[in-house]
Protein backbone atom coordinates (compact mmCIF):
# COMPACT_ATOMS: atom_id res chain seq x y z
CA UNK A 1 0.00 0.00 0.00
CA UNK A 2 1.20 3.46 -0.80
CA UNK A 3 2.03 5.65 2.19
CA UNK A 4 2.09 8.77 0.03
CA UNK A 5 0.01 9.08 -3.13
CA UNK A 6 -0.08 12.23 -5.32
CA UNK A 7 -2.71 12.11 -8.08
CA UNK A 8 -2.53 14.92 -10.63
CA UNK A 9 -1.80 17.42 -7.88
CA UNK A 10 -1.57 21.12 -8.67
CA UNK A 11 -0.88 23.85 -6.14
CA UNK A 12 -1.42 27.51 -6.82
CA UNK A 13 -0.55 29.94 -4.01
CA UNK A 14 -2.75 32.96 -3.26
CA UNK A 15 -0.17 35.20 -4.94
CA UNK A 16 -0.88 33.37 -8.22
CA UNK A 17 2.33 31.38 -8.44
CA UNK A 18 1.73 27.85 -9.59
CA UNK A 19 4.15 25.76 -7.54
CA UNK A 20 3.09 22.32 -8.76
CA UNK A 21 1.40 21.27 -11.97
CA UNK A 22 -0.27 17.90 -12.38
CA UNK A 23 2.17 16.02 -10.20
CA UNK A 24 1.61 12.30 -9.70
CA UNK A 25 3.76 9.80 -7.82
CA UNK A 26 3.45 7.14 -5.22
CA UNK A 27 5.72 6.14 -2.36
CA UNK A 28 5.25 2.68 -0.93
CA UNK A 29 5.24 1.84 2.74
CA UNK A 30 8.79 1.40 4.04
CA UNK A 31 10.37 3.06 1.00
CA UNK A 32 13.10 5.71 1.20
CA UNK A 33 12.84 8.35 -1.53
CA UNK A 34 14.80 11.49 -2.38
CA UNK A 35 12.97 14.48 -3.79
CA UNK A 36 15.41 16.58 -5.78
CA UNK A 37 15.42 19.59 -8.06
CA UNK A 38 16.57 23.20 -8.09
CA UNK A 39 15.38 25.75 -5.59
CA UNK A 40 11.86 26.73 -6.48
CA UNK A 41 11.17 23.48 -8.30
CA UNK A 42 8.40 22.66 -5.83
CA UNK A 43 10.16 20.35 -3.35
CA UNK A 44 9.00 22.34 -0.31
CA UNK A 45 5.47 22.51 -1.65
CA UNK A 46 5.33 18.72 -1.95
CA UNK A 47 6.44 18.39 1.68
CA UNK A 48 3.95 21.03 2.81
CA UNK A 49 1.17 19.12 1.08
CA UNK A 50 2.25 15.90 2.80
CA UNK A 51 2.40 17.53 6.25
CA UNK A 52 -0.93 19.25 5.59
CA UNK A 53 0.58 22.69 5.98
CA UNK A 54 -1.07 23.37 2.63
CA UNK A 55 -3.94 21.75 0.77
CA UNK A 56 -3.83 20.95 -2.96
CA UNK A 57 -5.59 23.32 -5.35
CA UNK A 58 -6.45 20.41 -7.67
CA UNK A 59 -5.90 16.68 -7.49
CA UNK A 60 -5.64 14.48 -4.40
CA UNK A 61 -2.91 13.94 -1.86
CA UNK A 62 -3.32 10.77 0.20
CA UNK A 63 -1.06 10.27 3.21
CA UNK A 64 -1.27 7.25 5.54
CA UNK A 65 -4.56 6.38 3.86
CA UNK A 66 -6.16 9.80 4.42
CA UNK A 67 -7.00 12.28 1.69
CA UNK A 68 -5.73 15.66 2.89
CA UNK A 69 -8.07 17.77 0.77
CA UNK A 70 -11.19 16.99 2.79
CA UNK A 71 -9.71 16.44 6.25
CA UNK A 72 -11.53 18.55 8.83
CA UNK A 73 -9.46 21.03 10.85
CA UNK A 74 -10.14 19.20 14.10
CA UNK A 75 -8.63 16.01 12.66
CA UNK A 76 -5.39 17.68 11.56
CA UNK A 77 -3.58 17.21 14.93
CA UNK A 78 -4.22 13.44 14.86
CA UNK A 79 -3.10 13.37 11.20
CA UNK A 80 0.16 15.14 12.02
CA UNK A 81 0.94 12.71 14.83
CA UNK A 82 1.23 10.02 12.15
CA UNK A 83 4.28 11.65 10.62
CA UNK A 84 7.60 13.05 11.76
CA UNK A 85 8.95 16.23 10.19
CA UNK A 86 12.59 17.32 10.07
CA UNK A 87 13.51 20.85 8.98
CA UNK A 88 16.65 22.38 7.61
CA UNK A 89 16.61 24.91 10.46
CA UNK A 90 15.48 22.09 12.80
CA UNK A 91 12.89 24.37 14.51
CA UNK A 92 13.93 23.51 18.07
CA UNK A 93 12.61 25.52 21.00
CA UNK A 94 15.64 27.52 22.09
CA UNK A 95 14.49 27.99 25.70
CA UNK A 96 13.83 24.30 26.35
CA UNK A 97 16.37 21.59 27.06
CA UNK A 98 16.92 18.76 24.59
CA UNK A 99 14.69 16.40 26.57
CA UNK A 100 11.66 18.74 26.41
CA UNK A 101 12.16 19.34 22.70
CA UNK A 102 12.23 15.65 21.89
CA UNK A 103 9.35 14.89 24.29
CA UNK A 104 6.97 17.43 22.69
CA UNK A 105 5.24 15.04 20.22
CA UNK A 106 4.62 12.56 23.05
CA UNK A 107 3.36 15.25 25.41
CA UNK A 108 0.83 16.61 22.89
CA UNK A 109 -0.34 13.05 22.24
CA UNK A 110 -0.93 12.56 25.97
CA UNK A 111 1.60 9.79 26.61
CA UNK A 112 2.11 8.79 30.26
CA UNK A 113 5.18 10.43 31.81
CA UNK A 114 6.98 7.13 32.40
CA UNK A 115 6.66 6.24 28.74
CA UNK A 116 7.73 9.74 27.68
CA UNK A 117 10.92 9.32 29.67
CA UNK A 118 11.64 5.89 28.19
CA UNK A 119 10.91 6.82 24.60
CA UNK A 120 12.83 10.12 24.67
CA UNK A 121 15.92 8.30 25.92
CA UNK A 122 15.49 5.64 23.26
CA UNK A 123 15.18 8.28 20.52
CA UNK A 124 18.22 10.20 21.80
CA UNK A 125 20.14 6.94 21.96
CA UNK A 126 19.28 6.25 18.31
CA UNK A 127 20.74 9.59 17.21
CA UNK A 128 23.74 9.27 19.56
CA UNK A 129 22.85 12.07 21.95
CA UNK A 130 22.08 10.13 25.11
CA UNK A 131 23.41 12.07 28.10
CA UNK A 132 22.72 15.52 26.60
CA UNK A 133 19.05 15.68 27.72
CA UNK A 134 19.57 18.66 30.02
CA UNK A 135 21.48 20.82 27.54
CA UNK A 136 19.91 23.69 25.65
CA UNK A 137 19.94 23.54 21.83
CA UNK A 138 22.34 26.49 21.68
CA UNK A 139 24.91 24.50 23.65
CA UNK A 140 25.03 21.84 20.92
CA UNK A 141 26.83 21.83 17.57
CA UNK A 142 24.81 22.34 14.38
CA UNK A 143 25.01 18.64 13.57
CA UNK A 144 23.84 17.72 17.06
CA UNK A 145 20.95 20.17 16.82
CA UNK A 146 19.87 18.54 13.58
CA UNK A 147 20.01 15.14 15.27
CA UNK A 148 17.80 16.45 18.11
CA UNK A 149 15.31 17.47 15.41
CA UNK A 150 15.47 13.94 14.00
CA UNK A 151 14.99 12.42 17.46
CA UNK A 152 11.89 14.60 17.86
CA UNK A 153 10.58 13.41 14.50
CA UNK A 154 10.96 9.71 15.34
CA UNK A 155 10.19 9.70 19.07
CA UNK A 156 6.52 8.82 18.64
CA UNK A 157 7.43 6.10 16.08
CA UNK A 158 5.45 7.51 13.17
CA UNK A 159 5.12 5.32 10.06
CA UNK A 160 6.33 8.24 7.89
CA UNK A 161 9.18 10.73 8.20
CA UNK A 162 9.61 13.69 5.88
CA UNK A 163 12.67 15.93 5.86
CA UNK A 164 13.26 19.27 4.16
CA UNK A 165 16.97 19.74 3.31
CA UNK A 166 18.05 18.05 6.55
CA UNK A 167 21.73 18.36 5.56
CA UNK A 168 21.51 21.88 4.18
CA UNK A 169 23.65 23.37 6.95
CA UNK A 170 26.01 20.43 7.44
CA UNK A 171 29.43 19.57 6.06
CA UNK A 172 29.74 16.38 3.92
CA UNK A 173 30.81 14.10 6.79
CA UNK A 174 27.93 15.20 9.02
CA UNK A 175 25.56 14.99 6.05
CA UNK A 176 26.44 11.38 5.45
CA UNK A 177 26.02 10.64 9.15
CA UNK A 178 22.56 12.19 9.20
CA UNK A 179 21.52 10.42 6.02
CA UNK A 180 22.64 7.06 7.32
CA UNK A 181 20.39 7.71 10.32
CA UNK A 182 17.45 8.08 7.94
CA UNK A 183 18.46 4.91 6.16
CA UNK A 184 18.41 3.03 9.46
CA UNK A 185 14.83 4.13 10.07
CA UNK A 186 13.95 3.07 6.57
CA UNK A 187 15.53 -0.33 7.23
CA UNK A 188 13.09 -0.96 10.09
CA UNK A 189 10.06 -0.19 7.92
CA UNK A 190 9.58 3.56 8.28
CA UNK A 191 8.69 5.40 5.06
CA UNK A 192 11.17 8.27 4.48
CA UNK A 193 10.82 11.17 2.06
CA UNK A 194 13.77 13.58 1.93
CA UNK A 195 13.91 16.78 -0.11
CA UNK A 196 17.52 17.63 -0.93
CA UNK A 197 19.71 19.17 -3.58
CA UNK A 198 22.78 17.28 -2.42
CA UNK A 199 23.56 15.06 -5.43
CA UNK A 200 26.49 13.33 -3.69
CA UNK A 201 24.25 12.06 -0.95
CA UNK A 202 21.61 10.86 -3.36
CA UNK A 203 24.23 8.96 -5.35
CA UNK A 204 25.93 7.50 -2.27
CA UNK A 205 22.75 6.10 -0.78
CA UNK A 206 21.45 4.70 -4.09
CA UNK A 207 17.78 5.15 -3.26
CA UNK A 208 14.92 6.07 -5.53
CA UNK A 209 14.86 9.70 -6.69
CA UNK A 210 11.99 11.89 -7.83
CA UNK A 211 13.23 14.92 -9.74
CA UNK A 212 11.09 18.03 -9.85
CA UNK A 213 11.57 20.85 -12.34
CA UNK A 214 9.33 23.91 -12.55
CA UNK A 215 6.61 22.21 -10.58
CA UNK A 216 6.50 19.03 -12.62
CA UNK A 217 7.95 15.59 -12.12
CA UNK A 218 10.77 15.44 -14.62
CA UNK A 219 12.44 12.19 -14.03
CA UNK A 220 12.12 9.16 -11.85
CA UNK A 221 15.09 6.96 -11.40
CA UNK A 222 13.20 3.77 -11.93
CA UNK A 223 16.21 1.45 -12.00
CA UNK A 224 16.57 1.38 -8.27
CA UNK A 225 13.06 0.23 -7.50
CA UNK A 226 10.81 -1.24 -10.11
CA UNK A 227 7.35 -0.49 -8.67
CA UNK A 228 7.27 3.23 -9.39
CA UNK A 229 4.05 4.71 -10.67
CA UNK A 230 4.42 6.59 -13.92
CA UNK A 231 4.47 10.37 -13.84
CA UNK A 232 1.76 12.57 -15.27
Amino acid at each position, binding site marked *: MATILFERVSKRYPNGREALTQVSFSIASGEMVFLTGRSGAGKSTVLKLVAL*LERPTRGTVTVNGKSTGSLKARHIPA*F*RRQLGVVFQDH*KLLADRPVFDNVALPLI*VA*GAPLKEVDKRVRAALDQVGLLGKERMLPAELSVGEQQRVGIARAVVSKPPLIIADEPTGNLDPDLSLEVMSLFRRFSDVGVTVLIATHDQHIVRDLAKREIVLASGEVQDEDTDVLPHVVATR
Partner: protein
Amino acid sequence: MRLSVFGTRHLQALLGSFGRLARHPLATILTLLVIGLALALPAALGLFVINAQQATGGFTNAVDMSVYLKSGVPVAKAQQLAAAARQRPGVARVTVIPADQGLRQFRRYSGFGAALDALKSNPLPNVLHVVPRASASSPADLEALRSYFAAWPEVDVVQLDTEWVLRFNAILAVIRRLVLIAAVLLGAGVLAVVGNTIRLEILNRRAEIEVTKLVGGSNAFVRRPFLYTGLLYGVGGAVLAWGILETAVLVLDPTVTTLAQLYGSRYALQGPPQQVLAALFGGGMALGWLGAWISARRHLRSIEPRA
Protein backbone atom coordinates in the same frame (compact mmCIF):
# COMPACT_ATOMS: atom_id res chain seq x y z
CA MET B 1 -7.37 9.16 27.35
CA ARG B 2 -6.95 7.90 30.88
CA LEU B 3 -7.92 10.17 33.73
CA SER B 4 -4.43 10.22 35.26
CA VAL B 5 -2.94 11.28 31.92
CA PHE B 6 -5.62 13.95 31.63
CA GLY B 7 -4.83 15.21 35.14
CA THR B 8 -1.11 15.12 34.46
CA ARG B 9 -1.48 17.23 31.33
CA HIS B 10 -3.50 19.84 33.19
CA LEU B 11 -1.02 19.87 36.05
CA GLN B 12 1.81 20.32 33.56
CA ALA B 13 0.00 23.21 31.90
CA LEU B 14 -0.73 24.81 35.28
CA LEU B 15 2.84 24.45 36.55
CA GLY B 16 4.19 25.65 33.21
CA SER B 17 2.03 28.77 33.36
CA PHE B 18 3.05 29.38 36.96
CA GLY B 19 6.72 29.01 36.07
CA ARG B 20 6.44 31.47 33.19
CA LEU B 21 4.74 34.06 35.41
CA ALA B 22 7.40 33.56 38.09
CA ARG B 23 10.18 34.08 35.54
CA HIS B 24 9.01 37.65 34.84
CA PRO B 25 8.16 38.85 38.34
CA LEU B 26 8.02 42.58 37.60
CA ALA B 27 5.68 42.31 34.61
CA THR B 28 3.55 39.79 36.49
CA ILE B 29 3.27 41.97 39.58
CA LEU B 30 2.31 45.03 37.54
CA THR B 31 -0.43 43.09 35.76
CA LEU B 32 -1.63 41.61 39.06
CA LEU B 33 -1.69 45.06 40.63
CA VAL B 34 -3.95 46.42 37.88
CA ILE B 35 -6.28 43.43 38.20
CA GLY B 36 -6.17 43.60 42.01
CA LEU B 37 -7.11 47.29 42.08
CA ALA B 38 -9.92 46.73 39.57
CA LEU B 39 -11.33 43.94 41.73
CA ALA B 40 -10.77 45.79 45.00
CA LEU B 41 -12.83 48.86 44.14
CA PRO B 42 -16.26 47.24 43.73
CA ALA B 43 -15.47 44.84 46.57
CA ALA B 44 -14.65 47.83 48.82
CA LEU B 45 -17.95 49.52 47.94
CA GLY B 46 -19.76 46.26 48.67
CA LEU B 47 -17.96 46.00 51.98
CA PHE B 48 -19.00 49.56 52.79
CA VAL B 49 -22.67 48.70 52.21
CA ILE B 50 -22.40 45.60 54.39
CA ASN B 51 -20.73 47.56 57.19
CA ALA B 52 -23.23 50.40 56.98
CA GLN B 53 -26.08 47.93 57.24
CA GLN B 54 -24.55 46.14 60.20
CA ALA B 55 -23.63 49.32 62.02
CA THR B 56 -27.19 50.56 61.81
CA GLY B 57 -28.75 47.10 61.87
CA GLY B 58 -30.46 47.75 65.24
CA PHE B 59 -32.82 50.31 63.80
CA THR B 60 -32.94 50.14 60.04
CA ASN B 61 -35.37 47.27 60.18
CA ALA B 62 -37.37 48.22 63.31
CA VAL B 63 -38.88 51.67 62.92
CA ASP B 64 -40.56 53.22 65.91
CA MET B 65 -42.67 56.24 66.85
CA SER B 66 -42.90 58.57 69.80
CA VAL B 67 -46.38 59.65 70.92
CA TYR B 68 -46.18 62.92 72.91
CA LEU B 69 -49.18 63.45 75.18
CA LYS B 70 -50.45 66.93 75.95
CA SER B 71 -48.91 68.39 79.07
CA GLY B 72 -51.19 67.85 81.98
CA VAL B 73 -52.31 64.40 80.93
CA PRO B 74 -51.49 62.25 83.99
CA VAL B 75 -49.28 59.17 83.94
CA ALA B 76 -52.24 56.96 84.86
CA LYS B 77 -54.02 58.09 81.71
CA ALA B 78 -50.84 57.37 79.73
CA GLN B 79 -50.76 53.81 81.12
CA GLN B 80 -54.40 53.39 80.14
CA LEU B 81 -53.72 54.54 76.57
CA ALA B 82 -50.70 52.24 76.37
CA ALA B 83 -52.82 49.28 77.46
CA ALA B 84 -55.36 50.10 74.74
CA ALA B 85 -52.60 50.48 72.11
CA ARG B 86 -51.12 47.08 72.98
CA GLN B 87 -54.40 45.50 71.81
CA ARG B 88 -53.79 46.64 68.22
CA PRO B 89 -52.51 43.84 65.98
CA GLY B 90 -49.69 45.86 64.37
CA VAL B 91 -48.13 46.87 67.67
CA ALA B 92 -45.21 44.91 69.10
CA ARG B 93 -44.36 46.96 72.19
CA VAL B 94 -45.53 50.10 73.95
CA THR B 95 -43.40 51.67 76.66
CA VAL B 96 -44.58 54.54 78.80
CA ILE B 97 -41.86 57.10 79.49
CA PRO B 98 -43.20 59.27 82.32
CA ALA B 99 -42.28 62.95 82.24
CA ASP B 100 -39.92 62.77 85.24
CA GLN B 101 -38.04 59.80 83.80
CA GLY B 102 -37.73 61.67 80.51
CA LEU B 103 -36.32 64.65 82.37
CA ARG B 104 -33.74 62.47 84.15
CA GLN B 105 -32.61 61.00 80.86
CA PHE B 106 -32.45 64.41 79.22
CA ARG B 107 -30.44 65.78 82.14
CA ARG B 108 -27.97 62.90 81.92
CA TYR B 109 -27.36 62.96 78.15
CA SER B 110 -27.80 66.59 77.17
CA GLY B 111 -25.40 68.35 79.51
CA PHE B 112 -28.06 71.01 80.27
CA GLY B 113 -28.29 69.88 83.91
CA ALA B 114 -27.75 73.32 85.47
CA ALA B 115 -30.16 75.00 83.09
CA LEU B 116 -32.83 72.44 83.89
CA ASP B 117 -32.42 73.06 87.61
CA ALA B 118 -33.49 76.62 86.97
CA LEU B 119 -36.88 75.45 85.73
CA LYS B 120 -39.66 75.49 88.27
CA SER B 121 -41.61 72.61 86.78
CA ASN B 122 -40.95 69.73 84.38
CA PRO B 123 -41.59 71.01 80.83
CA LEU B 124 -41.63 67.51 79.35
CA PRO B 125 -44.86 65.62 78.66
CA ASN B 126 -45.48 61.94 79.23
CA VAL B 127 -44.48 59.94 76.16
CA LEU B 128 -45.48 56.57 74.73
CA HIS B 129 -42.69 54.82 72.83
CA VAL B 130 -44.36 52.56 70.27
CA VAL B 131 -42.55 49.78 68.33
CA PRO B 132 -44.63 48.32 65.50
CA ARG B 133 -44.35 44.67 64.48
CA ALA B 134 -41.85 43.99 61.69
CA SER B 135 -44.72 42.65 59.59
CA ALA B 136 -46.59 45.94 59.95
CA SER B 137 -43.78 48.36 59.09
CA SER B 138 -44.74 49.38 55.59
CA PRO B 139 -45.29 53.11 55.09
CA ALA B 140 -49.07 52.56 54.80
CA ASP B 141 -49.24 50.52 58.04
CA LEU B 142 -47.17 53.12 59.87
CA GLU B 143 -49.41 55.92 58.59
CA ALA B 144 -52.51 54.04 59.83
CA LEU B 145 -50.91 53.63 63.25
CA ARG B 146 -49.93 57.29 63.33
CA SER B 147 -53.51 58.44 62.61
CA TYR B 148 -54.81 56.04 65.27
CA PHE B 149 -52.74 57.82 67.91
CA ALA B 150 -53.24 61.28 66.48
CA ALA B 151 -57.04 60.88 66.77
CA TRP B 152 -56.92 60.75 70.58
CA PRO B 153 -57.67 64.08 72.28
CA GLU B 154 -54.89 63.47 74.86
CA VAL B 155 -52.21 63.26 72.14
CA ASP B 156 -50.27 66.35 71.20
CA VAL B 157 -47.82 65.12 68.51
CA VAL B 158 -46.96 61.76 66.94
CA GLN B 159 -43.41 61.67 65.73
CA LEU B 160 -42.55 58.96 63.24
CA ASP B 161 -38.84 58.11 63.39
CA THR B 162 -38.84 56.50 59.98
CA GLU B 163 -37.90 59.20 57.55
CA TRP B 164 -34.19 59.06 58.14
CA VAL B 165 -34.31 55.28 58.01
CA LEU B 166 -36.04 55.38 54.64
CA ARG B 167 -33.53 57.92 53.38
CA PHE B 168 -30.64 55.90 54.69
CA ASN B 169 -31.93 52.74 53.03
CA ALA B 170 -32.38 54.68 49.78
CA ILE B 171 -28.78 55.85 49.97
CA LEU B 172 -27.64 52.27 50.49
CA ALA B 173 -29.70 51.21 47.47
CA VAL B 174 -27.90 53.85 45.37
CA ILE B 175 -24.52 52.64 46.58
CA ARG B 176 -25.51 49.05 45.86
CA ARG B 177 -26.33 50.07 42.30
CA LEU B 178 -22.96 51.85 42.13
CA VAL B 179 -21.29 48.60 43.20
CA LEU B 180 -22.98 46.88 40.30
CA ILE B 181 -21.91 49.54 37.77
CA ALA B 182 -18.34 49.58 39.10
CA ALA B 183 -18.21 45.78 39.02
CA VAL B 184 -19.37 45.66 35.40
CA LEU B 185 -17.01 48.41 34.20
CA LEU B 186 -13.97 47.23 36.11
CA GLY B 187 -14.75 43.63 35.20
CA ALA B 188 -14.60 44.66 31.54
CA GLY B 189 -11.27 46.33 32.40
CA VAL B 190 -9.93 43.10 33.88
CA LEU B 191 -11.03 41.24 30.73
CA ALA B 192 -9.16 43.74 28.58
CA VAL B 193 -6.01 43.65 30.72
CA VAL B 194 -5.86 39.85 30.83
CA GLY B 195 -6.77 39.58 27.16
CA ASN B 196 -4.03 41.97 26.12
CA THR B 197 -1.42 40.35 28.34
CA ILE B 198 -2.29 36.93 26.93
CA ARG B 199 -2.17 38.35 23.38
CA LEU B 200 1.39 39.58 23.94
CA GLU B 201 2.40 36.23 25.39
CA ILE B 202 0.91 34.38 22.43
CA LEU B 203 2.89 36.59 20.04
CA ASN B 204 6.05 36.04 22.10
CA ARG B 205 5.62 32.29 21.94
CA ARG B 206 4.65 32.15 18.31
CA ALA B 207 7.52 29.82 17.33
CA GLU B 208 6.68 27.42 20.10
CA ILE B 209 3.00 27.38 19.13
CA GLU B 210 3.88 26.67 15.50
CA VAL B 211 6.14 23.77 16.41
CA THR B 212 3.56 22.38 18.84
CA LYS B 213 0.88 22.45 16.17
CA LEU B 214 3.31 20.91 13.70
CA VAL B 215 3.93 17.86 15.86
CA GLY B 216 0.19 17.34 16.29
CA GLY B 217 -0.74 19.58 19.22
CA SER B 218 -4.48 20.25 19.17
CA ASN B 219 -5.90 23.73 19.63
CA ALA B 220 -7.05 22.72 23.10
CA PHE B 221 -3.52 21.66 23.99
CA VAL B 222 -2.01 24.89 22.70
CA ARG B 223 -4.69 26.98 24.43
CA ARG B 224 -4.50 25.28 27.81
CA PRO B 225 -1.42 27.01 29.29
CA PHE B 226 -2.81 30.41 28.31
CA LEU B 227 -6.13 29.66 30.02
CA TYR B 228 -4.25 28.64 33.16
CA THR B 229 -2.21 31.84 32.94
CA GLY B 230 -5.47 33.81 32.83
CA LEU B 231 -6.82 31.84 35.76
CA LEU B 232 -3.65 32.51 37.76
CA TYR B 233 -3.88 36.24 36.98
CA GLY B 234 -7.46 36.14 38.31
CA VAL B 235 -6.51 34.33 41.51
CA GLY B 236 -3.46 36.52 42.06
CA GLY B 237 -5.51 39.67 41.46
CA ALA B 238 -8.14 38.46 43.93
CA VAL B 239 -5.48 37.77 46.57
CA LEU B 240 -4.10 41.30 46.08
CA ALA B 241 -7.60 42.79 46.24
CA TRP B 242 -8.21 40.90 49.47
CA GLY B 243 -4.99 42.31 50.89
CA ILE B 244 -6.03 45.81 49.82
CA LEU B 245 -9.42 45.42 51.56
CA GLU B 246 -7.91 44.08 54.78
CA THR B 247 -5.35 46.89 54.81
CA ALA B 248 -8.06 49.49 54.20
CA VAL B 249 -10.13 48.05 57.08
CA LEU B 250 -7.07 48.12 59.31
CA VAL B 251 -6.36 51.76 58.46
CA LEU B 252 -9.99 52.88 58.81
CA ASP B 253 -10.86 50.92 61.95
CA PRO B 254 -9.63 53.37 64.64
CA THR B 255 -11.41 56.33 63.06
CA VAL B 256 -14.62 54.33 62.59
CA THR B 257 -14.48 53.17 66.20
CA THR B 258 -14.15 56.80 67.32
CA LEU B 259 -17.06 57.78 65.08
CA ALA B 260 -19.19 54.93 66.45
CA GLN B 261 -18.37 55.94 70.03
CA LEU B 262 -19.61 59.45 69.32
CA TYR B 263 -22.95 57.86 68.41
CA GLY B 264 -22.85 55.75 71.56
CA SER B 265 -22.10 52.56 69.66
CA ARG B 266 -19.34 50.03 70.09
CA TYR B 267 -19.30 49.14 66.42
CA ALA B 268 -16.00 47.88 65.01
CA LEU B 269 -15.40 47.76 61.24
CA GLN B 270 -15.91 44.31 59.74
CA GLY B 271 -13.36 42.77 57.35
CA PRO B 272 -14.63 41.22 54.09
CA PRO B 273 -17.11 38.46 54.95
CA GLN B 274 -17.21 35.14 53.08
CA GLN B 275 -19.70 36.36 50.52
CA VAL B 276 -17.39 39.23 49.47
CA LEU B 277 -14.36 36.93 49.34
CA ALA B 278 -16.30 34.38 47.32
CA ALA B 279 -17.37 37.08 44.85
CA LEU B 280 -13.79 38.38 44.71
CA PHE B 281 -12.17 35.01 43.98
CA GLY B 282 -15.03 33.68 41.84
CA GLY B 283 -15.15 36.90 39.82
CA GLY B 284 -11.37 37.12 39.52
CA MET B 285 -11.00 33.54 38.30
CA ALA B 286 -13.95 33.76 35.90
CA LEU B 287 -12.72 37.05 34.41
CA GLY B 288 -9.11 35.86 34.11
CA TRP B 289 -10.16 32.65 32.43
CA LEU B 290 -12.64 34.35 30.12
CA GLY B 291 -10.18 37.10 29.12
CA ALA B 292 -7.57 34.48 28.27
CA TRP B 293 -10.11 32.37 26.41
CA ILE B 294 -11.29 35.25 24.24
CA SER B 295 -7.73 36.30 23.46
CA ALA B 296 -6.52 32.74 22.79
CA ARG B 297 -9.46 32.01 20.55
CA ARG B 298 -8.79 35.15 18.55
CA HIS B 299 -5.03 34.98 18.23
CA LEU B 300 -4.17 31.28 18.23
CA ARG B 301 -6.25 30.64 15.16
CA SER B 302 -4.02 32.87 13.07
CA ILE B 303 -0.87 30.98 14.03
CA GLU B 304 -0.41 28.01 11.76
CA PRO B 305 2.90 26.25 11.18
CA ARG B 306 4.93 27.23 8.16
CA ALA B 307 7.65 25.07 6.71
